[in-house]
């Protein structure tokens, strides 16, 4: 039994790595483990619970040991609850994640905040929830504060909170999950909580802003001591079904031959990931709860683009000319948060923890992905839609730039 259990503790590995000998410390990780803080190496934790070191390990008798997936055996199917926001850039994450889990044979319930009849449900990804239902998923609506009542007696293994930005919103969900014996709690936080300095990228473990709402949530979840918990910090996403404009902002201007006003130098670096990368990272965490436990993951692709670069890539995807106009928002009295979809600063994280701890790989390929996005943009007729560009016009007027109509 001990041997079988030991082998079940070997992490499901990506093909790149050869499985470690039970009890032996893989030399590559022996060298590396001391230089990674504050996360612990899953291989090390495997080592210290394997029978050759501790013949009787408490871990073996804990209820959570039933949760370990046996290497090589049929993957355990999980019951997953996704608490999903009803708007904003993150809405799409829950949709892709649910779809991916359903595709892998897991049971998924998506609890969307608010009411099914609300106007917010008339926008994607909610307009595509039928895809989840036809794949065997359940979609419900309600107040996450009442999650227990909403799901009733349904039991779940995993909960993803893709909704709350502060403790008020997440605490009821986390508390319910803990009392309901949820084995794995995942939380979508934000890479926006990293303190900015002179060095980049933002890495897991780097200092974060003490006052950000997400920070309190992260700490609260950590302290609840789920069998497995993990935090995901995303940035910007593209993908079919997104609730908030990202690349569309550039397409809107490019197809109408309008200049693209970009605040500052245009050299600001940012991560723009395809949402499937976020979904695959979350799915991997569900598959590898031991490896993911207690970790923070920057939920981003592994390349950054400058703001000017993003404009260029969008123009190339659209096969159109591009004219970029830079402006100083302060000097023109413009609030760049209203005028432009990205932060006016370097905002750049790298997904090193996911690559190392989960064996995750990034698949975002902006040049290719943006082509697909542009094709959809045109197919829904958005290129022909009447639009106002009030703020743009204000900027251009201040800069006295000619616009060809």
């Amino acid at each position, binding site marked *: 039994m001990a041997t079988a259990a030991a082998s079940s503790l070997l992490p499901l590995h990506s093909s790149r790595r050869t499985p470690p000998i039970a009890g032996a410390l893989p030399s590559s990780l022996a060298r590396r483990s001391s230089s990674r803080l504050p996360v612990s190496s899953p291989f090390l934790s495997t080592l210290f619970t394997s029978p050759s070191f501790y013949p009787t390990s408490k871990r073996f008798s804990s209820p959570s040991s039933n949760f370990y997936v046996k290497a090589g055996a049929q993957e355990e199917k999980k019951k997953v609850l996704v608490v999903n926001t009803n708007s904003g850039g993150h809405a799409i994450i829950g949709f892709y994640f649910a779809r991916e889990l359903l595709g892998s044979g897991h049971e998924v319930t998506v609890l969307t905040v608010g009411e099914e009849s609300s106007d917010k449900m008339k926008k994607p990804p909610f307009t595509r929830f039928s895809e989840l239902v036809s794949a065997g998923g359940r979609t419900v609506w309600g107040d996450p504060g009442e999650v227990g009542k909403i799901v009733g007696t349904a039991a779940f293994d995993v909960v993803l909170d893709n909704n709350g930005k502060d403790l008020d919103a997440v605490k009821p969900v986390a508390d319910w999950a803990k009392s309901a014996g949820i084995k794995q709690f995942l939380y979508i936080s934000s890479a926006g909580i990293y303190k900015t300095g*002179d060095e*980049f990228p933002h890495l897991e473990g780097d200092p974060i802003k003490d006052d950000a709402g997400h920070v309190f949530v992260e700490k609260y979840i950590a302290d609840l001591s789920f069998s497995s918990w993990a935090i995901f910090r995303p940035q910007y996403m593209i993908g079919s079904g997104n609730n908030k404009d990202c690349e569309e902002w550039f397409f809107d201007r490019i197809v109408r031959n309008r200049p693209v006003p970009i605040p500052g130098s245009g050299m600001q670096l940012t991560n723009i990931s395809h949402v499937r990368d976020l979904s695959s990272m979350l799915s991997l965490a569900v598959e590898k709860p031991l490896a993911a436990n207690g970790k923070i993951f920057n939920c981003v692709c592994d390349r950054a683009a400058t703001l000017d670069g993003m404009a260029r890539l969008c123009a190339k995807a659209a096969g159109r000319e591009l004219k970029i106009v830079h402006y100083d928002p302060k000097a023109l009295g413009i609030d760049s948060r209203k005028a432009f979809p990205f932060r006016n600063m370097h905002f750049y994280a790298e997904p090193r923890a996911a690559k190392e701890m989960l064996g995750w790989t990034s698949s975002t390929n902006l040049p290719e992905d943006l082509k697909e996005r542009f094709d959809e943009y045109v197919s829904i007729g958005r290129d022909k839609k009447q639009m106002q560009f009030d703020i743009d016009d204000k900027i251009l007027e201040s800069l006295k730039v000619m616009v060809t109509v």
Partner: protein
Amino acid sequence: MAKLVAMQQLQPCHHIPLVSPSSSLLHSSLSEFSGTAVNISIQKKRKVWQPKGALHVKASSAKKILIMGGTRFIGVFLSRLLVKDGHQVTLFTRGKAPISQQLPGESDQEYAEFSSKILHLKGDRKDFEFVKTSLAANGFDVVYDINGREAVEVEPILDALPKMEQYIYCSSAGVYLKSDLLPHFETDAVDPKSRHKGKLETESLLDSRGVNWTSLRPVYIYGPLNYNPVEEWFFHRLKAGRPIPVPNGGVQITQLGHVKDLARAFVMVLGNSKASKQVYNISGSKYVTFDGLARACAKAAGFPEPEIVHYNPKEFDFGKKKAFPFRDQHFFASIEKATRDLGWTPEFGLIDGLADSYNLDFGRGTYRKPADFSTDDMILGKSLVLQS
């Protein structure tokens, strides 16, 4: 018995610099500038694996190694690591600089050990016939090519040593084609027209000749003895209490890698089958903005926060002079492949790395290029300054 003890330590010591922890040669004591706990934990790890008086056993069998160059910067540190590892190391140089010089922080004993063992093959690598005959006569197992620029320089070496085990080349991340997507990965497109195309051509030649080669691509290298005025450029201005002129917005992101970390990477690929026919980006773990680098140099050297002046380089004609030591663009590369495949990680963070350079070099009054503020004065003289 001593041998047995040494053998047991063989595995763990393999990828850790085999220099006694008390030596400040390879890692100056962490000053208050040490930012990250990363370095602290590595220090601790050294103590665990290296009790005092441990026999320094080489991990791979002793090789006959030739370093093309080796008296100026990278090679100075690399040769010491290799000699300490028990290899027979020869430097191929014209003999213009002394074959060995005692380094600041290096004890007399350490220096004596090194200088008594390092060998010299005097010659000009551009004399291809001489290279071929002298190398063939000596028969080397491994060649480290630290100063090669053109593929044509490498051919005589390959011709002379048909049984060579490995050719380890110092290339450059400068070969990457400029991209809107960063960081550069080893799989990225390269620029056949770049200033570093000789490096690319060398890599291609090595590959085409079926040699067991490994190529390392550093970004900007820094550290004591740097002959490229990277950190020195900032230190001169900080010392003179002058503002630091930075082109455009100062938000351009670059990457520095400590020479000692690079030297360790060079040692780690030696005899490493994983490294066969592979390129690796080798640099620091994090990247920094131009403005941030100015601040980091000040912090590392104990100067007050500098005044930074931004300017538009297009408004000036600096002639042949360089007004700033970095290319005016984002330029950084991912070291993930080296970390994943070789288990190499940089030991120096930016601040403590710059402190190491300052404490062992500029801070002692040594530098390679005297201060030249002529371009600064042109910039500062002009009343028009870019809004930051």
